[in-house]
């Protein structure tokens, strides 16, 4: 399989990465080179093989559903580019 220019733009949008028209042909070439490289997986017989979900056999650990941390709003917003009174600021979302 290979991707066309429209698909490259669609993937970029899904990935939330802005790409310029000039970048599309180059990205298309790179993505297609990678897709060509992984193409060899199609020759593996995977009938009846379970997909791996956990590389080390283990049961998912659970913890009690209790509040064990908190009161650190200053820490949470400390690295944010724009905040106001412990809120993250973003461009207007709802008109």
């Amino acid at each position, binding site marked *: *399989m290979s*991707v066309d220019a429209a*698909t*490259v733009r669609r*993937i*970029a*949008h*899904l*990935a*939330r*990465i*802005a*790409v310029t028209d000039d970048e599309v042909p180059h*990205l298309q070439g*790179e*993505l297609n*080179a*990678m*897709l060509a*490289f*992984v*193409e*060899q*997986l*199609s020759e*593996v017989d*995977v009938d009846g*093989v*379970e*997909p*791996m*979900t*956990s*590389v*080390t056999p*283990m049961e*998912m*650990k659970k*913890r009690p559903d209790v509040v064990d941390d908190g009161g*650190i709003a200053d*820490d*949470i917003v*400390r*690295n*944010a*580019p*724009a905040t106001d009174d412990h809120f*993250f600021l*973003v*461009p207007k*979302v709802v008109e």
Partner: protein
Amino acid sequence: MTLLTSLTLAEARDGLANKSFTSLELTDAHLGAIEAARTLNAFVLETPDQARAMARAVDAKIARGEGGPLAGIPLGIKDLFATRDVRTTACSKILGNFVPPYESTVTSQLWRDGAVMLGKLNNDEFAMGSSNETSCFGPVVNPWRREGANTELVPGGSSGGSASAVAAMLCMGATATDTGGSIRQPAALTGTVGIKPTYGRCSRWGIVAFASSLDQAGPIARTVRDSAILMRSMAGHDPKDTTSVDRAVPDYEAAIGKSVKGMKIGVPREYRLDGMPAEIEKLWAEGAAWLKAAGAELVDVSLPHTKYALPAYYIIAPAEASSNLARYDGVRYGLRVPGRSIGELYENTRAEGFGAEVRRRVMIGTYVLSAGYYDAYYLRAQKVRTLIKKDFEDCFAKGVHAILTPATPSAAFAVGANLDPVEMYLNDIFTVTVNMAGLPGIAVPAGRDAQQLPLGLQLIGRPFDEETLFSLGEVIEQAAGRFTPARWW
């Protein structure tokens, strides 16, 4: 007097314990070495004030007889580990000036045991790379040069800063991480020892995530013993990482010097590549001969799905990365590039903040997870991963204790060699299988190529049997000797 920086970690530990020198003296010697080696670009942040404060505090503890297993030992920390109040960037523009209000579990255990932080080490952006050339701080230079040449060589990646700093004696050991070979490949290219432990052995909490089902932390050091000492402090269960395994941490150092007599060592025929350089072939045969001389039995084994590990990795790792890196949105931390809408803000921020390699992997990952392609790519790759793991299980079930392979297909290459992405990925051809199967793997320097650059061998172990790797690694180190670059910087 021997330079303090040329001691091994074990020697320095003894010197500190019998008060031959203080941690402050040892730390100052390393801070001086770092300053004199800035041309290597191994450190992206030096923290001399913090280092001296930590050294003084630990000297006081040593004086009271309260020093821990790493008391007073100066280390470098890969910039992928969150360090409280110390800038942590994963060497990406998108994290900008991120200063974590928390400490990663692995580094907190090192400080608990008395280690001293010298600073943060360079790495490929988000640990994506095999040459340390994708870092937003620029490439790291390998302290090794080809005989009679002064071409700058890469130290490998992604833990290139860690490997370069340890090889150049700027720190006694370093933390590193390994998703497809990022500890072992740079260790091999710099003549240092690097071990990726079993998946789940070290907590991933507080380490910038790349591909969560593959990422593991581990040390890079100058000797097998030093790596065993560091491993003991880095490993251990952490309730904050659900994939961390609740298992006692052995005294890894006790495995050094243990007999390997009667151990069965597999030599996988699929790792013998077409066109493999004769010197790699020779190195591999030599390693086998050394283990045999130490009493191990060498057996021919088969890992039939080996050739599919790299392509499967280049689906699974980007898929997980595209999901993990979704958090960099310009809202909660790091870089923000304005836009007219929130969507545009995300897109502009991520376009500006991610480098070319990261963007490429996030896009591939997004594609293989997208509707209509998930089964053909991602699900198939996960099935192939099951088969790769089964290859190793079958091999170990036949009584094989460990597997011997080359660590890399070649020695260090030139900075700016401009390999195309797939060529670059082939650097990890011998290491990536180990991550796919969640196994422990160690790279130990074992010889030199025709241009006098170091080459490494890899030993792959059974799950949670790092101790056997240390015992076998020690045999190779004893036979091959140690590798130290001539100082030119």
